[in-house]
């Protein structure tokens, strides 16, 4: 920049900045201040607009008090948090995608097997189409062809194709994606249900053919597998090589809580829930007391290893819940199979609507900026650490848990905070385009609630109050996350 008098330089700089400052003031700052003021008034678009000039009344905290007494607000608040349960899975998905996409060096060796696999997929899909005719097998054929193409092209071009494919959701317009998923979820003609229908028919036929074997065998197998996993978890937590402190150990011991509670609920026994909670409490205490002292290094901090336990819980909880479902519902499956199984009404069933939206959000989140951040994080981990680990004979799992995961902690923290903010503020476009907030308000989030109150019923004062409550919530949660998460991320 040319030298000049300070005032002149300042004016020149301001001239460049002015459009941005004006835009910020007009579209961000002024509305922000106005909305804060509106939150304490009875501003109603029906009475306060350019045609009606009724005096705006200051109502103090009335809007906030009303909000806390509004059942719809609490329902939508609950919906928002429920939908955010998908956040850990989205983070895990992004990490897995990033890890997979960094494995590009072995493509040459994979060409042969990939070609064989792709050919088999294509032939199998073609056979299904030939035998079954249209249209359901055609969906299988479509999926098969797509899978084979992606497999071959990906292996031939290296990671570039996969990286592009995974990032696709991020540069596809939101509404277009929602419309596409709405078509996919269509209970009658959607590819998901068209693919599920023959599978469910086959399962139902199998159950009808050997009902007793299934009624006894499935719960037994699921129960056995579940116990094995719980035993493995307990052994791991007790290990002398563990990096988990007492709090992390307790958290790890709590992993079977959700599956146990679900199993008890499905069995319809409140007593079972109580017994489960009691057993679990004892289990946590016992595991912490039972754990062996660490063999090497200084004693661990209480909260050390929380991240590892959290990551592992993401895998174990769904798996154990699935097995618990096998135990609880296995015996009744043959009875249910008599009338056949219907694929779910994804967006129309109260129970399925939220998981369906979460599934779609998960798909979008896996290939989002989170994946890019993880890719960048992975590239910054020194290769020497992995080489040293290899020389010490570390397994891939040990390499991940002791090198990759701890060094990615700052990235994970950033992604968690951003995910939290987006999760609390989001859900509007998705619900508006796909479900209109239904069925029975199952997918109405807080942001949708604000929209309805503000722009469908015109109560801008009340809508502003809810928006500011949401801001405080985002701020507090982000602060807590940053404050406490940052400490462990930088350990």
């Amino acid at each position, binding site marked *: 920049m040319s030298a000049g008098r300070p005032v002149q330089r300042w004016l020149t700089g301001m001239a460049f900045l002015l459009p941005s400052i004006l835009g910020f003031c007009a579209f961000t700052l002024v509305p922000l201040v106005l909305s804060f003021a509106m939150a304490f008034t009875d501003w109603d*678009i029906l009475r306060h607009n350019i045609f009606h000039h009724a005096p705006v009344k200051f109502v103090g905290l009335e809007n906030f008090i009303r909000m806390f007494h509004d059942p719809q607000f609490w329902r939508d608040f609950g919906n928002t948090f429920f939908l955010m349960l998908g956040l850990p899975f989205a983070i895990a998905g992004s990490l897995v995608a990033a890890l997979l996409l960094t494995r590009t060096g072995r493509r040459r060796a994979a060409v042969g097997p990939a070609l064989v696999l792709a050919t088999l997929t294509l032939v199998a899909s073609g056979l299904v189409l030939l035998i079954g005719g249209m249209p359901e097998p055609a969906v299988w054929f479509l999926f098969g062809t797509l899978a084979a193409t992606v497999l071959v092209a990906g292996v031939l071009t290296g990671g570039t194709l996969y990286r592009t494919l995974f990032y696709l959701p991020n540069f596809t317009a939101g509404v277009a994606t929602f419309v596409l998923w709405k078509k996919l979820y*269509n*209970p009658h003609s959607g590819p998901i249900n068209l693919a599920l*229908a023959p599978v469910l028919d086959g399962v139902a036929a199998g159950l009808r053919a050997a009902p007793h074997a299934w009624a006894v065998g499935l719960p037994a197998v699921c129960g056995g597998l579940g116990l094995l996993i719980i035993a493995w978890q307990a052994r791991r937590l007790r290990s002398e090589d563990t990096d988990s402190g007492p709090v992390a150990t307790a958290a790890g011991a709590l992993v079977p809580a959700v599956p146990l509670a679900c199993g008890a609920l499905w069995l319809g026994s409140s007593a079972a829930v109580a017994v489960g909670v009691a057993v679990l409490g004892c289990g946590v205490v016992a595991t912490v007391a039972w754990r062996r002292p660490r063999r090497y290094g200084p004693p661990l901090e209480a909260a050390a290893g929380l991240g590892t336990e959290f990551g592992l819980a993401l895998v174990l909880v769904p798996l154990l819940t699935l097995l618990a479902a096998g135990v609880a519902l296995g015996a009744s499956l043959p009875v249910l199979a008599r009338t056949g199984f219907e694929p779910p009404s994804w967006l129309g069933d*109260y129970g399925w609507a939220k998981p369906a939206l979460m599934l779609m959000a998960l798909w979008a989140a896996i290939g989002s900026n989170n994946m890019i951040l993880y890719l960048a994080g992975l590239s910054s981990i020194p290769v020497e650490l992995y080489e040293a680990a290899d020389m010490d004979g570390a397994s891939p799992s040990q390499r991940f848990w002791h090198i990759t995961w701890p060094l990615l902690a700052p990235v994970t923290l950033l992604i968690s905070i951003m995910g939290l903010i987006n999760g609390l503020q989001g859900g509007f476009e998705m619900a508006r385009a796909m479900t209109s907030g239904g069925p029975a308000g199952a997918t109405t989030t807080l942001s949708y609630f604000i929209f309805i109150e503000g722009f469908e019923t015109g109560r801008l004062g009340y809508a502003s109050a809810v928006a500011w409550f949401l801001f405080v919530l985002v701020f507090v949660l982000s602060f807590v996350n940053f404050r406490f998460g940052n400490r462990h991320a930088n350990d």
Partner: protein
Amino acid sequence: MKRTFLIALCVLTVASVALVLTLPGHQGTAPVLFWVTQNDPVKRETIAVFGQWLAQQGLPPVEIRIDNTGQVKNGTTGEPKALIQGASGMGGDLIDVYLNQMELFQATGMLTDVTDMAREDGFDFGRTYPAVRSDFVIEDRQYGFPRNVDVTMCWVNRDTFARYGIPLPPHRWTIREFEELGRRFIAAANPPGSRHRVFFLNRVWPPTLRRSLGLSTFNETLTRCTLDDPRNVEVLNLLYRWTVEERLLPTHAEQEALAADATGWDSSFSLFASGRFAIIYEGLWALIRLRPKGDLHLAAVEPFNGGFPNTEFGTGAVAIYAGTRHPAEARQFLRFLASEPFNLLIARSSDSLPPLPAYAKTDAYRRPPGHAGEAEVKDAFAEAGRDIGLAQSKSPFVLPSITFRIDTEAIEEVLAGRLSAAEAARRTTERINAEIELRVRRDPELARLYAERLAIQRQIEARRAAGRPVPAAWLFDPFHLAYYRAHGWVEPEVKP
């Protein structure tokens, strides 16, 4: 850098000026009116005929452009875009207003009161069907004129009934007859072991069903919601049975899914034509969608009833935006809606009943060119509009869009098995009454009207308790007025 910045600024300034100069208002001499409506063939033809009509009347030309980005998409919920644009001074000159929007838009003050000009120019509410008056007249003030007048009936595909050997429903039928025929049809069309793919009816309109049992959403003076009534519980139970247990109707999700298969409502018509819906519950405009589906053998019967035959009767009115810069031209357009060329256009198109009842008797309506065989169904619609059509119950103390949302949520909760019918009825009533209370508390003008209406309500109840008739002027709810008249509970009306 400074030069680049200055050049960019100059280019943007010149481009902005060029844009302003090329806006429609700056081109040509004819004033340009923006009409917030759907961009469909009937609207485009309306604009063309309006141009011809202006020329015939010796009036200066007016250019009308359709603005379908802020269109009111359906009559069930509020339309935020049109509302926000209108309330902030950026509305279209002419706005299509359907069912539930009128109260919302009128309350903001964004619609012109056309009562006096309508009387002077001959498009006052007396010229159209009395039953739809409440759709564009609020507190005796007129805010538009009907562009269409729609009755909803049950369209029957005779071929589908014949295919399964099921007799056709009678023109007037009861809930019991509906259930009996429906069960037979479903059993025949969905044999055991197959997936349920064929439905008897596409949808039910709960208010119509409630009214058929003698119940309205509101009381006579529209001051309280009255859905915590055993008749509403019965309706909710019936909906659950028909939708979830007997599967006579698709669930809401299935309706949505079927609609997603094609654009908008088109899927219903395709499925009706192909026999997957035996009956569809739609307006006369369905003919426009059904004609291209082939040579269908159609009949139109009344919605089944629980003792009091009735059906939806509503209007899509055109209103003048209060902030329009062309009020005189917009007024001409409303005048045109009450003219012969426009009514003959609507009659020919089958978009709805023509706004002026007399045109429902013309050949243009009954036997339009190329569709001479439609007279029977057309007459059925005209007859229903005359005899059993009722406008929606809309309270001035709560926005219809809020009432609709609360009612819909309660029905969905019942269908999802999350609430019992009795609990849903109680909650719906409590929520709607709480909304009324809130709005009345915050609006002093509304509070005064509410107090007046409450006084009238007390008088009605006293008279009813004493077995005495009440004056028709006390009955603000269109259903109650018709119901009281049908039962002889109204004082004899003295005609001037």
